[in-house]
């Protein structure tokens, strides 16, 4: 048999071998140089034999990567992004609610009731009165501050969302740019390093907003929002995200590109932050509404008792703290924060010696009695003048007389803000009624007796106020103020703990899968050094082959010279 051969062809074979092993050596050098480069994928020069007996060639520089592990890692990173943001938010809310040291809201509440006890024992003591007023103000301002801190978190979250959205948009743009370069480089040797950088950007993006990638034959990936499938990147085109505050609902709305529908990401940091910012049952809004409920209930309960009591001083003129929207609509529909019920109260007029001049009973029927009816009932008494100015009832006593209130079973006094201790209806507005704050003698420690007389040493009303501490007035009559706050603190605590546990778990999961990825794609110096020796030997052998062929050519040439001479 005869195989065709050619001495210059052998030289060509040697040249190919040298180039192939040089390429392999370069690839090893590239791998060794990038041993610590984040996101780097090890590469391998794939050697193939050239048929027939043509030596060796590099078919491609392969990027050693397992797409399944890549996608698993992306999934874990999305969940990590979400858990990380969730843990940060819950921790911030918890920092506001952190009360175990006994200096926070619950301690303020305890002290307030203690001071009321002191007042019930010493109703004529001005110091006890001032202390009750001061502690009431401290309690109210603690509510105000807590509410303000929670609102600060809410507005910080809005800023946070904007920042994350713009970071995500930056990444979307960079990914599209890389795609452009990848497509341009498609016909050259594979753009492995561009792909590495792209995959790294996708990993960063998915921590902000969860995306599901789909590989395209041209080396690009299509990125769809996990869960909804809205495309964020498709080849070189992107759908930039935008976050806007809806003026009507106050919610932050996330949109992508020109799609009008509001997106609700399921994973990634934005999922957690948007949920905390928008969800009414999320940890932040739950905490805010708990605080509002507690503040409103304290105000209502304290005011209900206070309004039926009498101070050391009685009123010569008193204007209601709360305005009704209409004087002729029933009190129950006059836009008052607390709704009166059917019942009655008394206004007692005393002379300068404290003797009873007259008693005015006012009956309130829910859905019927109007503010003007109340005014008329009071005005009918010769010693009282009642007027309504911009929705507020004002009562004036005739010269030489004073008036006080008793036995309100209709909640009208607390609803109108007459003879109340607190004003305000939620955590942000709670404050001590200026009437009481200006003159502590108006704090109603006493109650008019059966003969409608008021005694200075009577602390019955203060005692009734102090006893509110143990009354189950919240959660449908099952929880005291402290119980309710404790439940709220416990809820924030366990949410924070859950978030921290999830974060720990997710951090471990990302580490495990990153480990897997490193096992496949990471550079092993040992392995590369072995490959280096191999390639070096192969290169030396190919070089030796060149020398041999050269010798052969020399022999042939010498043969010719010998013939000529």
């Amino acid at each position, binding site marked *: 048999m005869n195989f065709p051969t050619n001495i210059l062809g052998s030289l060509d074979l040697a040249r190919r071998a040298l180039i192939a092993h040089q390429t392999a050596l370069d690839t090893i050098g590239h791998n060794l140089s990038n041993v610590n480069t984040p996101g780097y994928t090890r590469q391998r020069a794939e050697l193939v034999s050239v048929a027939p007996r043509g030596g060796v060639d590099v078919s491609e520089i392969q990027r050693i990567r397992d797409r399944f592990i890549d996608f698993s890692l992306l999934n874990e990173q999305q969940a990590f992004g979400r858990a990380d943001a969730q843990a940060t938010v*819950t*921790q911030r809310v*918890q*920092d506001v*609610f*952190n*009360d*175990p040291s*006994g200096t926070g809201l*619950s*301690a303020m*509440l*305890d002290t307030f*009731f*203690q001071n009321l*006890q*002191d007042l*019930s*024992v*010493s109703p*004529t*003591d001005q110091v006890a009165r001032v202390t009750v007023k001061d502690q009431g103000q401290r309690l109210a301002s603690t509510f105000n501050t807590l509410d303000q801190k929670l609102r600060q978190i809410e507005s910080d979250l809005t800023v946070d969302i904007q920042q994350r959205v713009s970071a995500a948009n930056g990444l979307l743009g960079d990914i599209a740019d890389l795609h452009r370069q990848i497509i341009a480089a498609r016909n050259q040797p594979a753009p492995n390093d561009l792909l590495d950088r792209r995959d790294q950007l996708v990993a960063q993006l998915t921590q902000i907003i969860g995306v599901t990638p789909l590989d395209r034959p041209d080396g690009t990936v299509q990125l769809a929002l996990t869960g909804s499938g809205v495309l964020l990147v498709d080849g070189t085109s992107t759908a930039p995200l935008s976050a806007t505050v809806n003026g009507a609902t106050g919610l932050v709305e996330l949109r992508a590109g020109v799609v009008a529908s509001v997106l609700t990401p399921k994973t990634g940091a934005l999922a957690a932050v948007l949920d905390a910012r928008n969800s009414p049952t999320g940890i932040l809004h739950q905490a805010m509404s708990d605080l509002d409920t507690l503040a409103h209930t304290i105000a209502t309960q304290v005011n209900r008792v206070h309004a039926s009591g009498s101070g050391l001083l009685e009123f010569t003129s008193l204007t209601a703290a709360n305005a009704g929207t209409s004087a002729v609509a029933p009190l129950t529909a006059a836009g008052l924060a607390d709704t009166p019920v059917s019942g009655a109260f008394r206004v007692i007029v005393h002379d300068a010696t*404290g003797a009873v001049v007259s008693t005015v009973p006012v009956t309130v029927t829910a859905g019927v009695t109007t503010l003007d009816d109340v005014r008329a009932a009071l005005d009918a008494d010769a010693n009282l003048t009642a007027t309504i100015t911009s929705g507020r009832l004002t009562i004036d006593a005739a010269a030489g007389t004073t008036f006080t209130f008793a036995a309100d079973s209709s909640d009208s006094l607390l609803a109108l803000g007459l003879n109340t201790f607190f004003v305000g209806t939620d955590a942000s507005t709670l404050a001590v009624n200026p009437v009481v704050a200006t003159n502590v003698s108006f704090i109603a420690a006493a109650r008019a*007796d059966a*003969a409608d007389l008021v*005694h*200075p*040493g*009577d*602390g019955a009303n203060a*005692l009734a106020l102090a*006893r509110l501490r*143990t009354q189950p007035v919240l959660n449908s009559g099952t929880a005291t103020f402290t*119980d309710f*706050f*404790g*439940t709220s*603190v*416990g*809820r*924030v*605590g*366990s949410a*924070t*703990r859950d978030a*921290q546990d999830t974060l720990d778990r997710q951090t*471990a999961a990302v*580490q495990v899968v*990153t*480990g897997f990825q*490193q*096992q*496949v794609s*990471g*550079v*092993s*110096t*040992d*392995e590369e*050094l072995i490959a280096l020796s191999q390639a070096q030997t192969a290169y030396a052998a190919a070089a030796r082959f060149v020398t041999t062929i050269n010798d052969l050519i020399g022999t042939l040439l010498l043969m010719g010279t010998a013939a000529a001479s």
Partner: protein
Amino acid sequence: MRVTPGSINIKVNADLQRSLAALGRQQSLISAGRRITEPSDDPGGAAEALAIRSRQAANDQFQKNIAEARSSLTAADSVLQSIVEAVTHGKELAIQGGNDSNDASARQAIADEVDQLLEALVALGNSKGPRGAQLFGGQESTVAPYAVTRDLVTNLITAVTPNPRGIDGPTPAEVSEGLTISTTVSGTTVFGAPADPTNAFAMLITLRDALRANDGVATRATLAGLDTALDRSTLASTVVGTRLSWMDTLDTRAQDEGLVLSKSLSRVEDLDYAKAVSDLNQIQTSYSAGLAAGARLLQQSLLDFLR
């Protein structure tokens, strides 16, 4: 399985991080001395601690109220003893003056003594407590409960009238959960109702006038009424004494309760040092071991052996 320095680095780093974090957490627990530094450390415990603190505050307040009630009742007790003594002395004077061996001038002298007794009794009835509140005025704590009417000529007391606005209003202090005790005794309990003929003031006035009139029969007739008045003030004194000893019982109970609450709070919040320190040692050991193992693993490479 292919192992690369990268995968080993990640694992070693993560393990060391975990140990170090545990070490840091344990250290902060030990230096704070508390098991719960924020609600997430133990959400249930944090809520329980709040509830216990609230009960502690209430219990402290009950002790304060007990002290307040005790100081007022102690003052009332000592005044009541003087009142009992005064009424007893009045009865002795009635017995002495009732003896017909006394002549008019002797009875006049006794009458003067009874009059002084009456003045003293009115002053005692208008005694104030340690905080300046009337002891026998009920809720009318700022006005002297007893006003006197004097004869324009002799300047003698002709009538003692209680404050018309009432002297019997209750003045309770909450001394235990839902339990109140009156911190004062009403004048009516001590001296009798104004309309009652055996009212202590009325009896002394009657006695004095009988003695001044040198009326032996009328003088002797006051004895029965004075007995009733004496019984009444003695009873009031006993009631106050009983209340005072009750305060002692309640105070002891509140102190015990305070101890129980402190213990509960400590159980919920405080750190078990022995366990915490032994945990710390354990974590420290595993951290050191991890460091040693990591150091041996990371320094090796084929490069060490290639020549």
